[in-house]
């Protein structure tokens, strides 16, 4: 078993004059939650459509589970697109059964699994309702169920939380974490950075069709450390050795940048001599800061 469930090598996709993906490389570790980030129009959806074989890349290869991706692999992939919906006039049970069978599940197995998920979400009484009778949140649960019903090795969610109400977001997030525990690999694209920090293990940041940042979330955060510390003290006129630079001071809340050869302990020592420390904290960049910085630096 290869370590990566999916490897994308040199993927290129061009629409007329527009280069949607420009030699994109990705490696998605098995059993991880992989965040695919990027501003709107960066090429995330195009990449996900290529993985789902909805469109073909102009150039490049995809390796799925150690072998080149082939048509039959779609039964091993579950996809919840950003633009998602259901047949409004069709009954919930009939429709979910149809979609499960389209994924290649036999009738009885599909029925059994559906009942399991419907019971789990306590929505069994919706079975004979038409989709148009359901609220948006209810329909979203159904969409989630049909995405995971065939127990794929790889799940791909495009903006899974957009349009969900907070209660459903929590339910879906817990289910995603549960699926990860079961060994499923999850790719999910979003521009909601809080959810990225909360659940992703690895990320890739795509901008203008190129991967500009890729790796484990902890490592990326470390790389983006700015060595700035927030310090609250009781002195107004603070002076420090030259390796510590005071960036700002508002009401005794200091932002202090330490030079590369200095450490936080040295700063603490320097401070202890001069004043009383009320709080001391490293300013760790949020994913949002990293996202904005990386896109701007591009």
């Amino acid at each position: 078993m290869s370590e990566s469930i999916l490897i994308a090598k040199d993927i290129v996709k061009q629409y007329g004059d527009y280069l949607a993906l420009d030699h994109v490389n990705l490696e998605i570790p098995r059993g991880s939650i992989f965040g695919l980030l990027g501003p709107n129009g960066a090429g995330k959806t195009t990449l996900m459509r290529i993985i789902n074989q909805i469109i073909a890349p102009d150039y490049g290869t995809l390796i799925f589970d150690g072998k080149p991706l082939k048509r039959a692999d779609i039964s091993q992939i579950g996809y919840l697109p950003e633009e998602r919906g259901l047949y409004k006039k069709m009954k919930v049970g009939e429709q979910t059964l149809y979609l499960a069978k389209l994924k290649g599940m036999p009738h009885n197995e599909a029925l059994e699994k559906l009942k399991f998920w419907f019971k789990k979400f306590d929505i069994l009484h919706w079975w004979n309702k038409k989709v148009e009778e359901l609220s948006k949140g209810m329909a979203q649960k159904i969409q989630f169920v049909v995405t995971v019903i065939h127990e794929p090795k790889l799940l791909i969610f495009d903006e899974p939380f957009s349009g969900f109400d907070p209660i459903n977001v929590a339910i879906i997030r817990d289910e995603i974490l549960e699926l990860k525990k079961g060994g499923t690999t999850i790719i999910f694209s979003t521009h909601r950075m809080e959810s990225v920090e909360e659940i992703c293990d690895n990320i890739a940041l795509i901008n203008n069709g190129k991967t500009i940042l890729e790796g484990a979330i902890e490592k990326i955060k470390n790389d983006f450390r700015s060595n700035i510390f927030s310090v609250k003290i009781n002195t107004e006129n603070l002076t420090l050795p030259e390796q510590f630079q005071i960036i700002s001071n508002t009401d005794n809340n200091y932002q202090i940048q330490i030079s590369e050869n200095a450490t936080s302990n040295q700063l603490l020592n320097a401070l202890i001599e001069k004043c009383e420390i009320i709080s001391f904290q490293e300013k760790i960049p949020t994913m949002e800061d990293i996202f904005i910085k990386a896109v701007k630096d591009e």
Partner: protein
Amino acid sequence: MNKIWLIIKREYLVRVRKRSFIIMTILGPLLMAGIIILPTYLAMQGHDERTIALYEENTFFSSKLEDTDNLHFVKIPFEEVNIIKEDFSASPYYALLDIKDAENFTLYSNQQVSLSVQSEIEGKLSDIIQRQKLELAGIDLQILEGVTTQIEVETIIIGEEGETTGNAEVSFGIGFMCGILIYMFIFMYGTMVMRGVIEEKTSRIVEVIISSVKPFQLMMGKILGVALVGLTQFLLWIILTLILSAFAEVLFFDTLTISTESIAVGKEQSLILSSLSTSLAGINILQLLFSFVFYFLGGYLLYSALFAAVGSAVDAEADTQQFILPITIPLIISFILMQPVMDNPDGVLAYWLSLIPFTSPIIMMVRLPFGVSNAELILSMALLVAGFLATTYLAAKIYRTGILMYGKKASYKELWKWLTY
């Protein structure tokens, strides 16, 4: 392959279970039966008898004007003319015919005189004048009447199977029926495919489905599913029409044929029927049926792929107009040209239109009852298959890109770009 069946099944079941399908299936034969029964029924009811007041200074015309089935002439004196004119509705007459001399006739009425009454009176009057002129020229009217003859030319088609009786009227009727049915079928079910595609796009389910099946499978599944819906509907219509007309025959004609008038109508009908059956012998029924189903399906498949492509390129049905027009033009042209083709079923126009795949489904069916060589028929069918493969290929290219484009109205330029992706 298994998945395309799933799609066909869904598309079919969803549509045949719809209330509108069931209503149309029941209403269709009722309407058809109505079209067949109503004229016969009305013909048996006789006409309104209308009384026409007639004023003439002398008696030249009034002595010669004879009453007909529906016109009754009453000569009135001069005094009455003004009374009638003053208050027409109080008079018992439908109209007043005022004859001044052999060139000046006026018809008064308190309403617009019906065209048939006017033309009947005109005919009668000109008849009288004509006879008068002939008599004045010294021609014996009895000889003239003896000259009138009516002949009927029997048409024999010398074909590969020997001589068969032909009948242009019956060929005309059958060709016309087939052409109209195919035209209707393509339009009704082509737009049904288009609506289905738009529905999938606007409800945003399409991307969920094409992550399981190829866009081409989804498109073909829909087209074939709708084709089965159409065939089911026509089959049910035929069965229900047969049942209904059998009932109608028992209910209407058995009770009504007692009157002498309707016996005459009945005889006429049976005459028409027997002549119909002898003339049908001149037409290769098996070939006609096979060709009908072939062109019926071939034409539908050719056009529905294009309708599907149109559906994929838009977000709402209101935006389809600009793309629908070029698709429907060849259909409408073939519909309009049915008449000229029937007038000259072996002409250059008929020949080419029955080969071009966009017009052949309608035009060839119109020509077929008049006799078309096998080589020509096979060529036309082969071209239709080629045409259907070509439009499906192009439509699929537009479709697979179009279904993923949301929120913007595509232009022709964009459609062209999609073909090259």
